[in-house]
């Protein structure tokens, strides 16, 4: 709980002292926050409930399209539109859950991958969503600062939700479902409801992030909003940071963004290097960077206690 507050606090500082940060820094901060939200939501689903999804793109995209649709047609305030965008994701989750939860393990992962792609193709073919060219947002371009603030609020909400999820009684039920779904059912756990609830919460957060992203871009199209790279980036950052660990997604997000910035001029190299980092980490640090840090800490503690015995 404390760590989450610290992280949120760091970003909050940026909000309180806007003149300290350049416009560019604000944008990076915004992107990082969004990525953290996505990573946390994915971790909730996969790390705590055992549902490894390759379909994050579906929800990012839905949130984006809902927000643009709302803002273009109604005078709804941005904040509310983001919430409704999130709601769109939760609704999508509820709709696909009967089908998607019938798939276990491996099949679930592959099924969510297909879901993301199916959504993208549907949007490409549906004329009233702008088809392949997409939609334009007809409201004023937001300032970097405003975006940053919205991002911060979403981040705070996400951290709160994750902290509750990790320590609540619900987490006991989620872990039981993750460990042995049939045995959980046999002791009275309504496994479908537990999975559905987790899925809807995670999807809500992902869609809200997608909505904010749409607000920033002001123009969306299917390839960008439902593209595979969302699912893949989220997966990569959580694995790099450490899946199932409380702070994994946070560090993973920061690293992935930082890497992107460093290699901004060499996009192929950037992706290739992300791939290599992924391979190396999975091999030598399967618990991600956070796991590695934990091991290093334990090792140092062991060393210092033995140092005086020579």
């Amino acid at each position, binding site marked *: 709980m404390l760590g989450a507050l610290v992280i949120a606090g760091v970003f909050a500082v940026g909000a309180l002292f806007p003149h300290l940060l350049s416009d560019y820094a604000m944008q990076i901060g915004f992107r990082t926050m969004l990525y953290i939200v996505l990573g946390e939501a994915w971790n909730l689903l996969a790390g705590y409930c055992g549902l490894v999804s390759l379909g994050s793109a579906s929800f990012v995209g839905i949130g984006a399209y809902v927000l643009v649709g709302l803002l273009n047609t109604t005078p709804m305030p941005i904040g509310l539109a983001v919430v409704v965008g999130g709601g769109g994701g939760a609704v999508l989750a509820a709709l696909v859950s009967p*089908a998607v939860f019938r798939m276990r*393990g491996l*099949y679930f992962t592959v099924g969510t*991958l*297909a879901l993301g792609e*199916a959504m993208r193709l549907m949007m490409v073919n549906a004329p009233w969503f702008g088809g392949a060219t997409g939609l334009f947002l007809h409201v004023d371009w937001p300032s970097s600062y405003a975006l940053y603030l919205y991002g911060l609020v979403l981040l705070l909400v996400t951290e709160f939700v994750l902290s509750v999820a990790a320590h609540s009684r619900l987490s006991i039920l989620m872990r039981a479902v993750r460990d042995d779904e049939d045995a959980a059912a046999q002791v009275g756990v309504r496994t479908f409801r537990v999975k559905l609830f987790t899925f809807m919460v995670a999807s809500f957060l992902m869609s809200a992030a997608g909505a904010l992203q749409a607000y920033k871009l002001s123009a969306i199209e299917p390839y960008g909003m439902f593209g595979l790279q969302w699912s893949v980036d989220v997966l990569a950052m959580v694995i790099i940071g450490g899946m199932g660990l409380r702070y994994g997604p946070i560090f993973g997000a920061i690293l992935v963004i930082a890497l992107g910035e460093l290699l901004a001029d060499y996009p192929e190299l950037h992706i*290739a290097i992300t*791939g290599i980092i992924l*391979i190396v980490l999975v091999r030598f640090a399967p618990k991600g960077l956070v796991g590695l840090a934990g091991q290093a800490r334990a090792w140092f503690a062991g060393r210092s206690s033995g140092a005086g015995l020579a």
Partner: protein
Amino acid sequence: MLGLEIIASSVTSGFLLGGTLALTALGLSIVLGVMRLINLAHGIFLIAGAYAGFFLQQVTGLDPFVTVVVVAAVVGAAALPVQRYLLEPLAKYGAEAPMMTTFGLAIVLENLFLLKFSADTRSIETSEAAVPLQLGPISVPLIYLICFAVSVCVILLVHLIVVRTSFGRDLRASAVDPGAAAVVGVDVRRVHTLTFALGGACAGVGGTLIGILFSFTPASGANYLLTDFTIVVLGGMGNILGTLIGGIVLGVLQSVAGIVLGDGYRDLIGLVVFLAMLAVRPRGLFKGHAA
């Protein structure tokens, strides 16, 4: 209203193309069935096969259908160290770790191909290219039939290997209980390595066929990956003959969707079928499995 000839030709094309795509899915199916590994690098293996076929044809001028054997050997051999050094050490970490590694490999290779070969669209030329074959009212390009024949031959060959040879026995035993297999003398590590190489070889040949039939870029792999997953699920994970049937079914469905709904829906129908299968019958259309 479309003429009957056009519909018949279209469905036949779908049949032949689907059967060809089945070969591209075979490697994925075997690896999934025996090693329980989702090989996200499968798509890039296909593209590697396509590039190999392309360059072999440019350099030697030989018919790509002949050099396909070399492609199989090359990609299969390239897959060996991937399994041995990248994936094998991860065996004890659960299912996500190897999957993530193959994913990392896929994006590394895709971008290396982009850097080396650029994003230019290429395709492999053959002498039989556009010649249509006329069978009564049905007209399909001859090349479709040839590729279909190649695909079926390879699939049958793999099926025979798995069902008749002692290696096939070892493979099927390792798929279902690697611990017991080791105790009765099966070198499970070797079986996995050879299986992965076999999957790579099939992908190589499939990739060459794709290169002949369609054009490709380094990024094409991802699309085929999804189509292949659909075929694997239709046919049953690890079911070799099932993969062939699954491919044909998908091909025909896509043709029908193209005719009835319009061209843009061809790919979509594939995904819808995929999701429906996963939800309703994830074990595939057929009972039991060969591996």
